[in-house]
Structures are given as structure tokens and as C-alpha cells.
């Protein structure tokens, strides 16, 4: 049994699985149920001046029958009085002293507002604070959430204001609705943040009802953009986490968020530099008990890898994530179809023929049986055939390591030297 506990900038939890600040952490009742189910921590639904929510708030994309491939919401921060939330936080912390409870906060970008709420919340006892600079809808129209999260100066300033009074670790939650997330991540570091968490939700319009021509969802015939999350956003989130993790000047711990649905996703985020992960959509889709497999799966994985602690995973893949110009141009992979496993659906053939590099042949063997074969010399190693193949192991991408590695940057630098050389000669 590996040690699953993690320590995010001083916030300790029995495992890396936290519930993100969202509907699942709206009340003490819910958070206590979550802790009973096994969640290691919870970021309380964002506290601030209470709001009024609209009815008809969530929507989701279904892909080929798979429900909740992506999830969208137009719900705002907590609509319950601050005192009620604080009382429930106190009760919950008393019952679960070893679990992490972090308060998510969002107020107007004013120093006194931040000071006031930080003091109130810390007074009842939380393990940390998370500044919500991410929510893309509603609150942003009032200058909060992603509206301040998109401006590095505002991120830095507000983080600084919080740090002026905060006694617990401060996590800054970043919006993905920005060209370069490292700009705001760096601003958070400059403001004194102890940690960053990302990503918040992505601006989205879930859909249009092709029968009524209303937006999905609609509120009395009108719609507005929401925040997108769930499995579909995972690759976007993972990249943003990785960009922060490999940035030399962003060297505070990261809490990874975005489409994490199982222990494998969690491992990926940790390998890419997250100290822990926050989950919402998966719990909303299946209930709190999905954490059981997350814990069990992670534990088994660590045992299989011979790792004693979950924290040993953190950042192991970060150094492998680089600029395109640093990739070896001489490395090659080529597809190979395993006739023993191939079921002859021809999906690889048609995808290659129509949309890639036309290097799979349909052939007939001596017994009249049809089979598929890759002309490896013509294969560029795009992976498409192996991606569309429905059978594991039917298509292998065979590696041909280069004898001499040569990256684009090295090549350009060599070419530059040659040019200079020529000039010298001439």
C-alpha cells in the first residue's frame, strides 16, 4: 500500500483527489458525504457576496451515445449567505480534521473587500484559500472571475492583497480563456501565491436546439455563454498545466483541474507537474463514490510501479515536454498491421487513403483471404491508422530511433553557422 497523501504548498490531504469548487461542494452536507466516500479534500463552492442564480443551468454534450463527454454551466458562485457557509465549513472541518478544506473566494477587485473576506473565512478555520479568477460567465460581467483573471496586473495585485492578510496557503485559480496562461500564472507568482490551480472552465455555448432554434440551455428563450469542462477539456487543461510546470519562473505547486475522470487521468496530471487534482464533472456524472476506483487504481498503479508515495509521481514527465523545435527530426515511427489481430474493418485503410498519406494496401493472400499491409517506406508515422483501429494491438507504431539526432533548432543553428562561414569565405 503506497502512501497516497499529498502536500500542496502546506495543505495536507490523505489523497490527491479533491472536489473542485463547484456544485458538488455547495454545502456541508455534500462535502461531508464526499469525505465519507473517500475524497481527500474539497474546495468549497466560491464564497462572496451572495448572488441570484437562473433556472436551467447545466447542459452537456453527448458523443455517439456517450453522455457528458463535455459539460457546460451558467451557474454563478454560492447563492447562500456567507454565515451559513462558514458555519458549515466549521462543522465539516471539526468532523474531518485530516481532510483538506479550502475556501474558494471571489470579490470585487478591491483591497478592503479581499481583506474582509479572507479574515472572515480564516477565522472559522480553513486549510487554505483559492482565489477564483476563472469563472467565465456572469460574475465576469461584474468585473470578477475571469474578467480579472485575464489581466495579469489584476491577478498580481489581488493575489498580493490577499497575501497581505492571509495566514493559510493561497492558491490562485486560473482561467483558460486567455492566449497564454503562463502570463497570468507568472503574475500570481509575482503576487506571492503559494500555488496555482488550473484550469477553470472554458467559454462555451453547448448547442442550439435544431427544433426550437433556442440555445442550449436557454433561460426563457435566451442563452448566454457558459463554462465548459468534463472529459472533452482534459487535453487543453493538461497542456496548460504542463506549460506552467515547465516554465522556469513558475515554480510553485500546481493543483491540476480539467476533465479528470479516473485515476489514470490523475496520474497524467501528476506526471505533468500537478501535486494534486481537482474533480467536478465526473462526480456530477456518477456521484461521489467514483473516488473509490480513483484511490484503488492509483494505489495499485503505484504498487506496480514500485513507488512508495503518490508524490513521487509529481512532475516526472515535465522535462519531456518541450518546444517543437527541440524534437528530433530524424526519429521515425511507422505503422505495422498485425494480421493475427486485425479484424479487417478497413478503417485504417480508408482513413489513410482519404485523409492521410495513402500508404496502406489492401491485398489478397495465397488462400484468397484479404489483408492489409502498410508500405512502411511511405508511412510518415502520423498514427492515424492506429488511432482509428478498434482493436488493441492490431496496429503497432514501430520505432526507428535515429542514429544521429537532429532538431529543427540544431539544424537552423548549423545552417546559420554555414551561412556565416560562407560569408566569411566570400
Amino acid at each position: 500500500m503506497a502512501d497516497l497523501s499529498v502536500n500542496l504548498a502546506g495543505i495536507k490531504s490523505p489523497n490527491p483527489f479533491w472536489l473542485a469548487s463547484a456544485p458538488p461542494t455547495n454545502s456541508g452536507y455534500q462535502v461531508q458525504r464526499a469525505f465519507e466516500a473517500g475524497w481527500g479534500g474539497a474546495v468549497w463552492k466560491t464564497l462572496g457576496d451572495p448572488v441570484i442564480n437562473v433556472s436551467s443551468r447545466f447542459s452537456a454534450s453527448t458523443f455517439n451515445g456517450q453522455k457528458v463527454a463535455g459539460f457546460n454551466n451558467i451557474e454563478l458562485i454560492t447563492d447562500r449567505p456567507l454565515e451559513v457557509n462558514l458555519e458549515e465549513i466549521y462543522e465539516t472541518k471539526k468532523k474531518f480534521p485530516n481532510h483538506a478544506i479550502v475556501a474558494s473566494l471571489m470579490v470585487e477587485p478591491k483591497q478592503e473587500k479581499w481583506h474582509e473576506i479572507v479574515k472572515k473565512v480564516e477565522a472559522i478555520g480553513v486549510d487554505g484559500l483559492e482565489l477564483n479568477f476563472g469563472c467565465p460567465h456572469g460574475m465576469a460581467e461584474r468585473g470578477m472571475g475571469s474578467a480579472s483573471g485575464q489581466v495579469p496586473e489584476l491577478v498580481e495585485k489581488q493575489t498580493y492583497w490577499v497575501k497581505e492578510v492571509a495566514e493559510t496557503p493561497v492558491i490562485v485559480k486560473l482561467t483558460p480563456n486567455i492566449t497564454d496562461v503562463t502570463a497570468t500564472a507568472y503574475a500570481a507568482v509575482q503576487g506571492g501565491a503559494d500555488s496555482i490551480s488550473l484550469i477553470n472552465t472554458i467559454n462555451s455555448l453547448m448547442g442550439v436546439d435544431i427544433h426550437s432554434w433556442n440555445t442550449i440551455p436557454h433561460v426563457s428563450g435566451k442563452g448566454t455563454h457558459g463554462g465548459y469542462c468534463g472529459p472533452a477539456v482534459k487535453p487543453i487543461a493538461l497542456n496548460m498545466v504542463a506549460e506552467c510546470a515547465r516554465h522556469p519562473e513558475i515554480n510553485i505547486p500546481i493543483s491540476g483541474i480539467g476533465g479528470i475522470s479516473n485515476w489514470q487521468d490523475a496520474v497524467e496530471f501528476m506526471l505533468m507537474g500537478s501535486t494534486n487534482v481537482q474533480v467536478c464533472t465526473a462526480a456530477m456524472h456518477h456521484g461521489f463514490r467514483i473516488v473509490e476506483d480513483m484511490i484503488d487504481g492509483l494505489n495499485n498503479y503505484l504498487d506496480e510501479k514500485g513507488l512508495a508515495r503518490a508524490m513521487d509521481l509529481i512532475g516526472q514527465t515535465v522535462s519531456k515536454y518541450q518546444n517543437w523545435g527541440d524534437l528530433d527530426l530524424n526519429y521515425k515511427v511507422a505503422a505495422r498491421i498485425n494480421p493475427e489481430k486485425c479484424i479487417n474493418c478497413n478503417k485504417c485503410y480508408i482513413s489513410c487513403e482519404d485523409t492521410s498519406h495513402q500508404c496502406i494496401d489492401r491485398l489478397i493472400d495465397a488462400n484468397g483471404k484479404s489483408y492489409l499491409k502498410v508500405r512502411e517506406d511511405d508511412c510518415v508515422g502520423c498514427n492515424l491508422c492506429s488511432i482509428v483501429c478498434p482493436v488493441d494491438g492490431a496496429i503497432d507504431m514501430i520505432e526507428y530511433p535515429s542514429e544521429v539526432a537532429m532538431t529543427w533548432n540544431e539544424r537552423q543553428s548549423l545552417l546559420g553557422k554555414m551561412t556565416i562561414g560562407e560569408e566569411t569565405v566570400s
Partner: protein
Amino acid sequence: MKSAESELLTAVDLKRNFFEVKQDMKPKEAIDEANRCLYCYDAPCMNACPTGIDVPSFIKKMASGNLKGSARDILDANPVGATCSRVCPTSELCEGACVLNDVSMPIRIGDLQRHATNWAMDHDVDLFESGVPTNTKVAIVGGGPAGLSAARELRRLGHEVTIFEAKEKAGGLDTYGIVSFRLPQSVSLWEVEQVEKLGVDIRTNCTVGKDISPETLKNDFDAVLITVGMGQVPKLGIEGEDLTGVYDAIQFVENTKTKPLTEQFIGKRAIVIGAGNTAIDAATCLIRSGASHVKIIYRRTEEEMTAYPFEFEFAKQDGVEFRWLTQPTKIMGDENGHVKQLMCVQMELGQPDESGRRRPVPVQDSSFLMDVDIVVRAIGQSRHIDLIEAFGLNHDSGILQLNDKTYQTSNDQIFAAGDVVYGSTEYGDAMVVSAAEQGKRAAYAIDKKLSC
């Protein structure tokens, strides 16, 4: 199903016993299954379908909620696609070819096809149109699957088409010969209606050779297509065949589809002779009619049986008993002329015959008697030799001589398709789906000839 053994059947139970056994897929079930389809390129299922239905295409359309397009894909390739979804031996055709057989479970193509065509039946949509008129007339003799399929295609190509159908309704075996609990008559009649809607004139109760002469057809039409299928079950050639209680399997099944269900079989002991799909149909109809004991006797063994494996399973589940290597030799009656006993002889397999199967030969002194009330013969179907000869066409024991490319008989003006041109049915029954395809091809051949 309620059987006679448990308690006495009521008229309501009897009726229920003949309802379609298999329920339609539920909408979610269909979409889940459709989403499992890989959408193979040049898919083996499509190549395995005699009518070449673009299976991946119709399933993809189903998954996107385009049921109309899905139904159109199916019925475009196969005008009797709703019937075929119920009666095709899918495990030997499309589903047998599904690539997922190797790694998972094959897609339930037949059930999906049934779901899509059910949608078409439930929604009054026009899926096809007749073509630009060509001013040519085609007569089709026989309104079974081959005839209907040809008529539909000929209409789409603009020809004027008249079907001459001897029975009260068109549809052939689909309407009269396939048990209701697998194929309700309404399905077949809906397919007939679709053909009629395109402007095909279907003259029912009109027997060629009796109500209208072959000569008239030859004179009044530019081409004649013979799709008369096959006839009744031949006699066994043993003593006692005229006793009350001896039935022709095809007639027996037809009765269950055309007449009020009778209570006369409740509690009766029945023996069906033969082990093809028609024998299974008759035996399962008997069980559902309340017969207390139903046996199928066959002179060969399970190995040589021509019934599809799934039909065999179905019969066993219904409670039909099978007696292999048993040949009837005499039907014995009581004083009222009613069947009382069946004398049989035990057989054993000898040397292979010309069909390659081991010939059954009687075991000496092995005669035995079985008490029985009903005997049904299901030993194949006779040929319409009289009609073929009335048209003056060459044939071989009732099997029409046919050019397999032009679908022309020995008379250039006369074409043929379906069971009437099939060879020996010793190796399994001719399929509805094959008849449909042949009808299509004959239609294209006729169109080609008439367009010259």
C-alpha cells in the same frame, strides 16, 4: 407462450401465441447498438447481404437519429427489407460476416434493420418514386418477394407493371407461408402496399393459365416475368395420406395466417415429417395451437437437416421433439377415417448418394408404431410444371432453364426469378432475400432489353 400441458388454452391465449415473438428494439437499445457499429469501409456485412444493403450506412444514419434515411437505405436495396429483417438467417449472412465476431459480439444488424423498417411502417412516408414513363409494359406472374421486388424496380425505371397474383393477397410466402409469430402478415402486406403506391397494378385472385392465358400476357405485354415460386408439399407416397388429420405443412401454416385460429389441435399429438424450415414452422405452429406432443421425424440425422440452426433451437425451446433416422411407411386410421397411428421404420446411414450426403437405408425388421392424431408433411415443395409448360418454356423437372446473366428463359420475351428458377432445395430453403435480389436483377435485365 402458453402451452396445452400447463393448462387449457383459451382463445385469447391462442391468439397471443401467434403474436410476433421478438419485440422491437427500444429506441435507446437501438441507438446504443448502432453506436457500437464500427462503420467499416467496404464492410463484410454489406458484401454478405444478397441484396447488398449498405449496412454501415443505415446503421450510421440510425445513430444520428435519421431513421428515415436509414429505412430508405435498407428498402432501396431490398424492397422486402422489413420481412428480411425478421426471416433472414442473419447469423449466416450479415451478422455472420461482422468483423466484431472476432473480438466482441457481432452487431445485431437484423434487429436494427427491423427497428428502422418498423419506423417506416409506423410513419407514412414515401421513400421512392416511379420513374419517367417509358411506355413499355411488363407482366409479372406471381406477387411474392421476387415479383414485388422486380415490380418496384421496374416502376422506378418507368415501366408500366401489372402483377398477376393467384391468391387473394400479394406477398407470396411472406404473406401466407411464414409463421405469424416470426412474420406478422401486416409486415408483408405493408411491403405490398409500398409497391402498389408506386403505381403497380396488382391483380389478385387471378391465376395465369386459368383466369388469363399465357398467350394474352405474351401479346399484351412487352415482357413477362415469371416469379411463381413453388407449389404445395408433395405427397409422401405412402398409404393413408388421405385420412382426416393429414396436412400439407404450407397449407397448415397458411391456415394459421388466414383463418380464425382453431381450437381443434388443443391436446392433440402431432408428427411433422421432414426437417427443413417449413417443418419447423409447422411444428411450432402446432405447439402454439395447443398440441400436447409435437415430434419432427426425419429419415436422416441432425447433420443433414436443412433447417437453420437458430430455427432448430427455436423449435426445441418451444418443446418440439426430434426423432432422427425415422421414416414413415404407413398412416393408419380409426373407424372414422381419422389418423390414429403412424408406422415408421428405423433408418441408418449408408454410402453417400449423389448429393454427397450418406444415404439413409431402412434397418431390417425395425418397424414401429407411434400413436398420433395429426400428421403434417413437410418434405419440400412441388413445382409449377403446368404453368411453365403452358408458357412453352424449357425446364428440367420443373426448374426453369434460365440464362443467368439476362434472366431470360428459353423464350427471349419471358424472364424468371425467385424460387421458380432455384435448383434442388436439398441443401436448404431458398431465402426471401435471394428472391428479392433476383427480382431486382431480373428487373434490370428486362429494363436493359426494353431500352434497346
